[in-house]
């Protein structure tokens, strides 16, 4: 398969993300699908960040262990990533003399490792040493005199050097475009569409021209004709759009990485049009509240659901932990709140800007007591959109909290896919048993066969909610008969959901080999992308953990020679849930808990280790 990997790195706060988005945008214009992944420290300025973009003619969902072209303009990026480059490195001629000790932002442990590797190869610890190491290994190094080029740009527009400094990025992006053989025009278009300021467009365009002429077309990648519009979105944004499409009208949140960008996007786009009558638009708005903490955030959202508004919050581990009590109240009071759970490196503050899947069992068991917690997890950007819609429909149909898991890696990564995978499709809204009360009083918690009570909203009639065990009217009662029935009624909703939701909808299955790669969430992408090189494999991605698709899973796993749990955690929690529900254990494990995404090559290599070398468990570590 033709799959190319490009990476750009640099200190946080210097525009690495923007240039990666521009590069992606330009490559997409050339007709390629792509997937881009962002890595950064929990820091505002100065620490190392990088962006990897992988592209191909076919849709992609993962990054690679190696990098064809590495675009750099500082020393740290070279030190952190030179082991990954296979073909080209673009670098600043001016930093050749920089040695490891001079890069103070680099973590001492990492510097130590680099020093060791270089010295093993008989080399010193300067950038120059690295470059010669690379050249020996066949990598082509492209030195750039950024300072001189920037000066030219500054002069041309009579701007101080500090203003045009970030055009460094564009120079290296342009050089990369030229190496791959993409038209400069696409880059110019991307610049025009992504910068707002005219002057910025102009001088960046000049920088692009300068950069483009630095190198030559090496890969000679063809242009691919595109028939249908495509979009480029990250996980935060597509989740926000999905929630708005689903009818979200109240979101409360407290800032936290990597969740808050979703809320910021919703707030920026809170004024909405609704097609209420055919052809007639009505304007409405989604209220977004920055709460004082996550305790307030969850409870505001739960309160909002009682009025009939579709309401949600978005958070990650530390904030989610603070929501436990509120989620339990929502369960007890059958409030259809949606929690978008952006999972990141844990425990505690952990790796706040890295990814992880270590909170699955916490999400599944959050809050004291027994009540239905529906938990779904998305494996790629398209899924995020549809799952966001699904989450609200589930919440209202089963009148219970729904937790939608999106990992940091997907939240901050972007992919390019066909627009009609979203637009033009029916976006189903199922609001469940909503009624208009007739009398003065409404029995909110009527006991029914399927556990689901008719629901009306505050203000429509007198009704009561209570976190205490309550009777059908919502008043506190401690009697045992009511307790048995009311408890059973709540729990029955899970059985009803289990009956109503086809198990096939809760699991993604690709292939039907004898070696099962059992996963959930983001590793799906690496597995799918690896499957063309793997033999006799089958991917099973669990999308809904509660109610768990037990019967289908039993059927799918029956007689398989290997069940390999692939997860971004230590315990293989997704597999533990499988065992709890079916008694089936995985036979092997491919696990990674560094906070970095699993690469396609790691899957291929991991499966090899297991199938050929008989390893029980493979621990992955790729990615700086």
């Amino acid at each position, binding site marked *: 398969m033709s799959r190319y990997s490009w990476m750009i790195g640099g200190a946080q706060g210097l525009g690495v993300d923007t240039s990666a988005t521009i590069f*992606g945008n330009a490559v997409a*214009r050339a007709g390629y699908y792509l997937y881009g992944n962002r890595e950064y420290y929990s820091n505002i300025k100065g620490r190392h960040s990088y962006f990897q973009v992988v592209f191909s003619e076919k849709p992609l969902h993962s990054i690679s262990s190696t990098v064809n072209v590495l675009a750099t303009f500082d020393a740290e990026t070279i030190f952190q990533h030179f082991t990954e480059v296979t073909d080209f490195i673009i670098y600043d001629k001016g930093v050749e003399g920089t040695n490891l000790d001079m890069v103070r932002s680099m973590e001492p442990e990492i510097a130590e490792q680099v020093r060791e590797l270089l010295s093993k190869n008989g080399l010193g610890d300067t950038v120059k040493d690295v470059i010669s190491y690379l050249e020996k290994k066949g990598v082509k190094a492209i030195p750039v005199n950024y300072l001189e080029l920037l000066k030219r740009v500054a002069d041309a527009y009579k701007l101080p050097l500090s203003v045009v400094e970030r055009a460094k990025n564009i120079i290296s992006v342009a050089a990369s475009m030229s190496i791959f053989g993409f038209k400069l025009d696409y880059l110019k278009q991307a610049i025009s569409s992504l910068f707002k300021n005219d002057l910025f467009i102009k001088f960046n365009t000049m920088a692009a021209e300068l950069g483009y002429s630095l190198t030559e077309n090496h890969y000679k990648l063809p242009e691919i004709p595109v028939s249908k*519009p*495509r*979009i480029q979105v990250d996980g935060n*944004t597509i989740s926000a759009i999905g929630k708005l*499409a689903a*009818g979200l*009208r109240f979101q*409360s949140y407290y800032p936290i990485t990597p969740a808050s960008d979703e809320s910021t996007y919703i707030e920026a*786009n809170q004024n*909405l*049009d*609704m*097609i*209420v009558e055919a052809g007639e*638009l009505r*304007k*409405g*708005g*989604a*209220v977004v*509240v920055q*709460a*004082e903490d996550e*305790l*307030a955030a969850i409870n*505001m959202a*739960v*309160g*909002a659901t*009682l*009025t*009939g*508004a*579709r*309401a949600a919050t978005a958070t990650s581990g530390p904030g989610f932990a603070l929501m436990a*009590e*509120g989620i339990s109240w929502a369960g007890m009071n059958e409030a259809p709140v949606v929690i978008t759970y952006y999972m990141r490196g844990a425990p505690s503050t952990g790796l706040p800007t890295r990814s992880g899947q270590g909170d699955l069992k916490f999400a599944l068991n959050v809050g004291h007591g027994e009540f239905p917690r529906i938990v779904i997890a998305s494996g790629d950007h398209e899924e995020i959109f549809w799952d966001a819609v699904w989450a609200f429909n589930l919440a209202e149909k089963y009148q219970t909290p729904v937790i939608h898991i999106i990992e940091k890696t997907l939240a901050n990564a972007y992919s390019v896919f066909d*627009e009609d995978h*979203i*637009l033009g499709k029916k976006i*189903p*809204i199922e609001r469940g048993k909503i009624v208009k009360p007739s*009398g003065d*009083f409404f*029995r909110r918690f009527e006991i029914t066969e399927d556990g689901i009570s008719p629901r009306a*909203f*505050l*203000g*429509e*009639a*007198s*009704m*009561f*909610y209570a*976190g205490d065990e309550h009777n059908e*009217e919502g*008043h*506190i009662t401690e009697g045992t008969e009511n307790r048995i029935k009311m408890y059973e009624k709540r729990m029955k909703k899970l059985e009803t959901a289990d009956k109503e939701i086809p198990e096939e909808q809760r699991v993604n299955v690709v292939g039907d080999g004898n070696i099962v790669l059992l996963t959930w969430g983001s590793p799906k992408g690496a597995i799918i992308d690896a499957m063309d090189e793997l033999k006799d494999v089958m991917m099973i991605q669990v999308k809904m953990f509660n109610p768990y698709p037990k019967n289908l899973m039993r059927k799918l796993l029956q007689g398989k020679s290997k069940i390999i749990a692939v997860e971004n955690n230590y315990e293989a929690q997704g597999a533990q849930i499988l065992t709890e529900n079916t008694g089936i254990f995985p036979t092997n494990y491919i696990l990674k808990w560094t906070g970095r995404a699993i690469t396609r090559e790691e899957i291929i290599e991991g499966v090899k280790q297991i199938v050929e070398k008989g390893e029980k468990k493979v621990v992955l570590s790729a990615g700086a």
Partner: protein
Amino acid sequence: MQEHKPVFVDWCPGCGNFGILRAEEMAIRELGIDPKKVIVVSGIGCSGKIPHFIQLPIGGVHTLHGRSIAYATGIKLSNPSLEVIVNIGDGDGLGIGMGHFVHAGRRNIDMTVIVHDNGVYGLTKGQASPTLHRGLKTKSLPRPNINDAVNPISVALSAGYTFVARGYAYDVMHLKDLIVKAIKHKGLAFIDVLQPCPTYNDINTKEWYDKRIYKLDNDPTWDPKVKSEADQQTKFERAMLKALEWGDKIPIGVFYENELVPTFEERIMQNIPNYLDYYPAKQEIEKNGESTTKIDELIKAKRV
């Protein structure tokens, strides 16, 4: 099952909560609001049971310990046509809920917060609440209280509440009047209600209060209402100094009233012009099983 069985009011005999209950019911009646549009949101404690006990067909949301203001915020902002009253305990609202209590002041949502201030954690058997003064040993404390008390009035003022008052549970008519004013007030209103707990607080009793309480209104020059920007600073400072009065004399009545501060609803309208007409709870998000929300623009903005 019959509609609306009467709920047994299980507070202790003589509890100050009965006075608050009566005053709140009377205020709602007097204002002539449709009871089902009145949402009484409470926390956990003896005080927290109040929505169940109100003899009017209101909406009642009995939430979590300390979190009622957050629930109320979600309810009111997604349906601003509702009249939201928050009843909190002093442990509930000023202990575990202190953070929300203060931050609510920063928003000035048009709703009413009533604290049942009994100096103790009633429902958990009489531990010291944040309003019990240091050195006091109420009946159920093994030793004198070693924490200083918070001053609900001065904290509310510091926090930005635009209506700040104190009432007394056994002066039901006066309290009713305060609640009426608080509900009518445009913005976030706060009433600290001195509420004797005969079971656990044997210090701040009816007798104790009766000797000390006087009405701010008795002073004809007392006018807590801010009438102009210029007025604001002086009225606020005076309220703040008055708030420090406690001991032999305890004032009740309105300390501060200011409708010049925009409500949160008004602030939202700066961003969503038709917010009050077509608020979140009212919007029709579904038609024939499909979403009504147009997302074309949002998606197309992401085209490459």
